[in-house]
C-alpha cells in the first residue's frame, strides 16, 4: 500500500528533523520526506495539517500477559493498546507462566504478534530457568528464537556467583542483560520507606534496596565487561550511582517508568491500590532527580512498565493488591508532560524533541544491534527506512477514563477519577511497516478511546 501523509509537522529527534512537509510510504518503507515526487500515486492520503508525524514509539517494558495470565491481558488486546498509544515496537518481559525460558515459547509469541500486525514484539528471555536464579537458560538458542536480551523481571538473582556467571556467559555472545536493581530481602515491602509508609503502616522498601543491588551489578559489570540495562530506576541515590558508573565508561544504560517519573508516594492517598506499582513510588526529591536524569541522559529511556492487572487482583487492600498499572496508551502523553511539550497546542522544537527522544532514540540506543536489520531505521524517519510511524495531535486534551482504554488492564494511577490528571496529545494514526495498526483519523476527539474532550 502507498500512503501519502500531507503537510504534517515531521519530527525526528535522531536527525534533528522538525519541519512541515509531506511523507511518502511505499511497500512498508519511507520513500520520501519533505518533498514527494509529483508522480507518487498513493492508495491513501492523510491530511496531517496541525498534527505531528514522528517515528513510532519504542517501549522497553511491557507485560502482555501471554502466556499464562490471559485473564489479565492477551496479545490481541495489549498490542492493540500499544498501537493505540503510538507504540510500534515493544519489549516484553519474561515473567509469564511458563516463563520465557524455552525457544518454542518465544517463537510462538513472535509468530502470534506478527499475525496480529499491530506492533513489533521483542521478547526478553529469562536469564535463569524459571527465573529462579539458579541455572542459566540456553541464551544462544533463545537469542536465535528472537530474544533481544535476558532479564530476571521482578525476581532478583540472590546468589551473586550465579549473577556473575550469567553476566560472563551473556558477555560471551554480546547479549545485554536487563536487570531491575532490587535487593531480594530489603526489596520486599509494598511502599517506599518514608513518612507516608510509616504513617499508613505499610511495609517499606528502603532506597538501599536499590543502591545495594546497583552497587553489586556495577561491580560485576566492571569485572565481566557485560552490557547491562538497568530497568526502572526509582531513587535519587540510584540515579547518582548510574551517573558515576556511566562516567567511568561502563557499558550500562538505564530507564525509568512513567509512574516513577511523575508520581510520588503521597499519591497513594487513602490506600489507593492503583498506586501499588513496582518499584514503589518514592518521594518528591527522587521524582525530581529522575526527571532531571532523564533530561541529562543519565537515564536513556522512558518506559510504560505496562502491566495489566485484573479487577479482582487490584480491588484488594493495598498490600495484597497485585502491583502494576496499565501504561502503553499513556506513554506518549506522559512523555510530553514531562518535557513540558504539553504546555501549548503547538509545542516548541526543544521540548518536543526531548519528549520524543526518550521514547524513540533513547530506547533504540538500549536495544542497539539486537534489532538486527531494523537497527538502522526503527525509531527514526529516514528515506528507505521502515515506515513505523505515529501521527498525533499535540493540541488534543484528554483525561484517562479507565473503561475506555483499549488495554484489558484498566488500572492506572493517572485515571482522572482518582487524581484529576490532565493529558495532552492524542494518537490519530499508527503505522507499522507501512500498515495501519491504529486509525483514529475519522473519530471525533471525544469518541476516541479513553478520551473526553
Amino acid at each position, binding site marked *: 500500500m502507498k500512503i501519502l501523509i500531507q503537510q504534517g509537522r515531521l519530527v525526528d529527534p535522531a536527525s534533528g528533523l522538525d519541519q512541515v512537509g509531506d511523507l511518502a510510504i511505499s511497500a512498508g518503507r519511507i520513500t520520501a520526506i519533505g518533498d514527494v515526487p509529483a508522480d507518487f500515486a498513493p492508495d491513501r492520503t492523510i491530511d496531517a495539517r496541525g498534527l505531528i508525524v514522528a517515528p513510532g514509539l519504542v517501549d522497553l517494558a511491557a507485560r502482555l500477559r501471554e502466556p499464562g495470565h490471559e485473564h489479565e491481558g492477551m496479545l490481541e488486546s495489549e498490542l492493540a493498546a500499544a498501537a493505540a498509544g503510538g507504540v510500534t515496537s515493544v519489549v516484553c518481559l519474561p515473567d509469564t507462566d511458563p516463563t520465557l525460558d524455552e525457544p518454542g515459547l518465544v517463537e510462538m509469541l513472535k509468530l502470534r504478534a506478527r499475525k496480529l500486525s499491530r506492533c513489533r514484539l521483542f521478547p526478553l528471555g529469562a536469564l535463569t530457568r524459571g527465573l529462579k536464579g539458579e541455572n542459566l537458560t540456553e541464551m544462544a538458542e533463545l537469542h536465535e528464537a528472537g530474544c533481544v536480551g535476558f532479564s530476571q523481571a521482578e525476581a532478583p538473582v540472590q546468589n551473586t556467583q550465579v549473577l556473575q556467571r550469567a553476566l560472563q556467559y551473556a558477555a560471551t555472545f554480546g547479549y545485554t542483560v536487563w536487570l531491575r536493581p532490587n535487593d531480594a530481602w530489603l526489596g520486599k515491602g509494598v511502599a517506599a*520507606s*518514608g*513518612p507516608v509508609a*510509616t*504513617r*499508613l*503502616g*505499610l511495609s517499606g522498601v528502603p532506597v538501599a534496596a536499590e543502591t545495594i543491588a546497583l552497587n553489586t551489578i556495577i561491580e560485576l559489570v566492571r569485572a565481566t565487561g557485560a552490557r547491562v540495562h538497568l530497568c526502572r530506576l526509582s531513587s535519587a541515590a540510584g540515579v547518582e550511582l548510574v551517573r558515576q558508573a556511566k562516567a567511568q565508561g561502563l557499558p550500562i544504560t538505564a530507564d525509568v517508568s512513567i509512574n516513577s517519573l*511523575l508520581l510520588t508516594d503521597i499519591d497513594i*492517598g*487513602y*490506600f489507593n*491500590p492503583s498506586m501499588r506499582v513496582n518499584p514503589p513510588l518514592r518521594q518528591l526529591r527522587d521524582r*525530581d532527580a529522575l*526527571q*532531571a536524569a532523564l*533530561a541529562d541522559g543519565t537515564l536513556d529511556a522512558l518506559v510504560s512498565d505496562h502491566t495489566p492487572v485484573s479487577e*479482582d487482583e487490584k*480491588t*484488594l*487492600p*493495598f*498490600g*495484597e493488591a497485585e502491583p502494576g498499572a496499565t501504561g502503553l496508551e499513556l506513554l506518549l502523553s506522559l512523555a510530553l*508532560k*514531562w*518535557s*513540558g511539550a*504539553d*504546555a501549548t497546542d503547538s509545542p516548541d522544537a526543544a*521540548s518536543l524533541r526531548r519528549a520524543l527522544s526518550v521514547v524513540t532514540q533513547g530506547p533504540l540506543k538500549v536495544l542497539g544491534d539486537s534489532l538486527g536489520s531494523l537497527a538502522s531505521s526503527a525509531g527514526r524517519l529516514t528515506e528507505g527506512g521502515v515506515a513505523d510511524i505515529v501521527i498525533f495531535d499535540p493540541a488534543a486534551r484528554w483525561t484517562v477514563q479507565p473503561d475506555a482504554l483499549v488495554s484489558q488492564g484498566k488500572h492506572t494511577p493517572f485515571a482522572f477519577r*482518582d*487524581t*484529576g*490528571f*490532565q493529558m495532552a496529545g492524542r494518537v490519530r494514526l499508527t503505522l507499522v511497516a507501512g500498515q495501519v495498526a491504529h486509525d483514529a483519523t475519522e473519530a471525533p476527539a471525544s469518541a476516541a478511546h479513553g478520551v473526553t474532550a
Partner: protein
Amino acid sequence: MSTSLPMRKPQRNPQLNAHGELIHLLSTEGLPQPIIHQILDTAEQFLSVNDREVKKVPLLRGKSVFNLFFENSTRTRTTFEIAAKRLSADVINLDIARSSASKGESLLDTIANLSAMQADMFIVRHSESGAPYLIAQHVAPHVHVVNAGDGRHAHPTQALLDMYTIRHYKKDFTNLTVAIVGDIVHSRVARSNIHALTTLGVPEVRVVGPRTLVPGDLREMGVRVCHNLEEGIKDADVVIMLRLQNERMNGGMLPSSGEFFKEFGLTQAKLALAKPDAIVMHPGPINRGVEIESAVADGKQSVILPQVTFGIAVRMAVMSIIAGNEA
C-alpha cells in the same frame, strides 16, 4: 522542564461526609478535635448507663451490626459486641478468618453478601493496613464502617478510649507529656494514639524503643523519638506500654524478650522517673515480665482495667454517632 505537579483532585477524608460529619470511623488521623470531644462527651453519658440495673439504651434498636474479624481477637470483638448490645442492636459475629476468606471468597464479595443481609454497620478487623478504607468505599451509602484494627495502620477506638482515660485522670491535654513505649513500628495503637494526642494539643508525645522498632521517620508524625527508656519516661504524665509480639524475636528485630525487658520493660524503679502522679496504660493483653512487670501492671498507678470499662462506653459513643449521620 515542566516539573510542576499535575493538577490533582482534592481528596475528601473518606470517614467524613460533605458536611464534615463522621460517617465511618477509620482513623484518628484527620479526625477533627470537636468530633473527638463529641465522642468522649457522649461516652461519658454512656458510662452511667453501664452502672444502671438495665444497661440498655434503644439508640440502635432494629439495626444489625456485623462483627467482621478477618484476624482473630476475642477481646476486642467482645467489647464491640457488648457495646452494640447495650445500644439494642442485633449483633452478628463472623469469624471470617475461619470461614469464607479461607474458601477463596474475596473481601469485597464477602462485603457484598453481608450487605445483602441488610447490615447497617460493619466492625472490621483485618491484617492488612487500609482494608477498612476499601470496604468503606464499596458499601451502600447507609452502611457504616468502624475500623477495629487494620494491619499496622490504625486502631481508632482503642486510641479514643485511651484519650477518654487520659482525660478522665488528667482533665487537660495541653500540658501533658505522654510516652508510648515498645514496638511502635508495628503498632496500629501507637499510630492512632499519636494522631489523637497531637490533635488534642498534647505538647510532647514521645515514642520509646530500640531503633528496629522505633524508626526515625516517626518524627514526621510530630513526636519525639527516644531510644532510651529512662530518657523517654522522665517526667511523663502518661506512660502507654505496648504489647510485644513474640514474632518480633524473628528476623532480627530483637535478640530476646529478656533483653527487651531489661532495656525497655517498665519496672517500679523506672516508673519512679515519671511524674509521681503518672498513670500507666496498656491496650492489653499484657505480657507480664516482657514489657511490664506485675508490680506496675497491678500497681496503684495502673489504669489498665479502667481502660477496658471506658472502652465499652467509647465504642457505644462511636457507633451511636456514626449511625446518626448520613453519607
